[in-house]
């Protein structure tokens, strides 16, 4: 009689063998002592594996992890706030540098540059003094509102929603 393969035996042990294999397996059990021993060996190992305990980590596992998470969050936060400061510092350095350079060259220069007077370009003058200023004010207002919404309103309502739920 033909023996079953290891895969077929494991299918029997996992409870997913076909009816054909199962009936063949029963026949083999009654006929072949060799097969019976082999099957029982694999069955014992399967039972041993099923009985293997779930291991437990140390008692402080959760606490240690929560501390690490809190630390990682603080670290992340401090880095992002540093980025703002780095940006502001660089901008200030550029600003001071430009003013210093302008003052330096202005005080050392003896030549006078004659700026031509343009009287015909009233449109440009109107644009640069009235329309441009209005547009810039509007853009600034929109940016300010967006920042206010993101930093103040959104966290406030999110917090309220969380507390209500």
């Amino acid at each position, binding site marked *: 009689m033909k023996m079953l393969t290891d895969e077929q035996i*494991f299918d029997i042990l996992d409870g997913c063998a076909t009816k054909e294999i199962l009936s063949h397996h029963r026949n083999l059990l009654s006929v072949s002592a060799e097969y019976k021993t082999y099957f029982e060996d694999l069955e014992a190992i399967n039972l041993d594996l099923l009985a293997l305990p779930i291991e437990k980590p*140390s008692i402080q596992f959760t606490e240690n992890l929560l501390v690490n998470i809190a630390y990682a969050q603080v670290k992340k936060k401090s880095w992002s706030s540093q980025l703002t400061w780095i940006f502001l510092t660089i901008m200030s350095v550029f600003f001071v540098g430009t003013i210093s350079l302008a003052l330096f060259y202005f005080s050392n220069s003896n030549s006078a540059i004659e700026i031509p007077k343009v009287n015909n370009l009233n449109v440009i003058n109107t644009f640069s003094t009235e329309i441009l200023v209005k547009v810039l004010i509007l853009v600034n207002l929109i940016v300010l509102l967006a920042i206010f919404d993101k930093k103040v309103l959104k966290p406030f309502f999110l917090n309220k929603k969380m507390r209500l739920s």
Partner: protein
Amino acid sequence: MGDKSAYKELINRHKDYAFTVAYRILNNREDAEEVAQDAFMQVFGALSSFNADSKFTTWFYRIVFNAALMQKRKNKVESVDIQNSSEAFLVMHSSDSAEDLQKNERKMAIQKALRNLSADDTAMITLFYLKELSLEEIAEITKISAETAKVKIHRARKRLADEMKKLLKDEVKSLL
């Protein structure tokens, strides 16, 4: 505050399984704990990118599985856990009955045999016997097809059976 309690609940729900997977692959409690902790940290760092359509456990075990395998490759010197040594076993179970002793001996033998298998084989067996995961989920974790996963699990169990036979033979030889 809300985040903290949610994290705590998530950790308590999954820590044992995560630790078990890591421990079976690494055979060292300290390393396994470190790997499980790192996996949780990775998970919390990437929670926003987690695809809600997929199962959390599958995603999480993939992180644990990969981290444990990476650690295993890093550990060139094989370390044996003191708790699993035969001397510790004798001290711990010296007052047990004959039946208990036999059961514990078998448990020790199977753990020893598992340690002698490759990390891949141990991981497949561990994931399969966690009872939490289907064959498809194991396939997703290990990034292979379900059919390949099934074959790999069968082969790993066969190798484990051979290893057990070898160990028991050695034990009989040492008694003679």
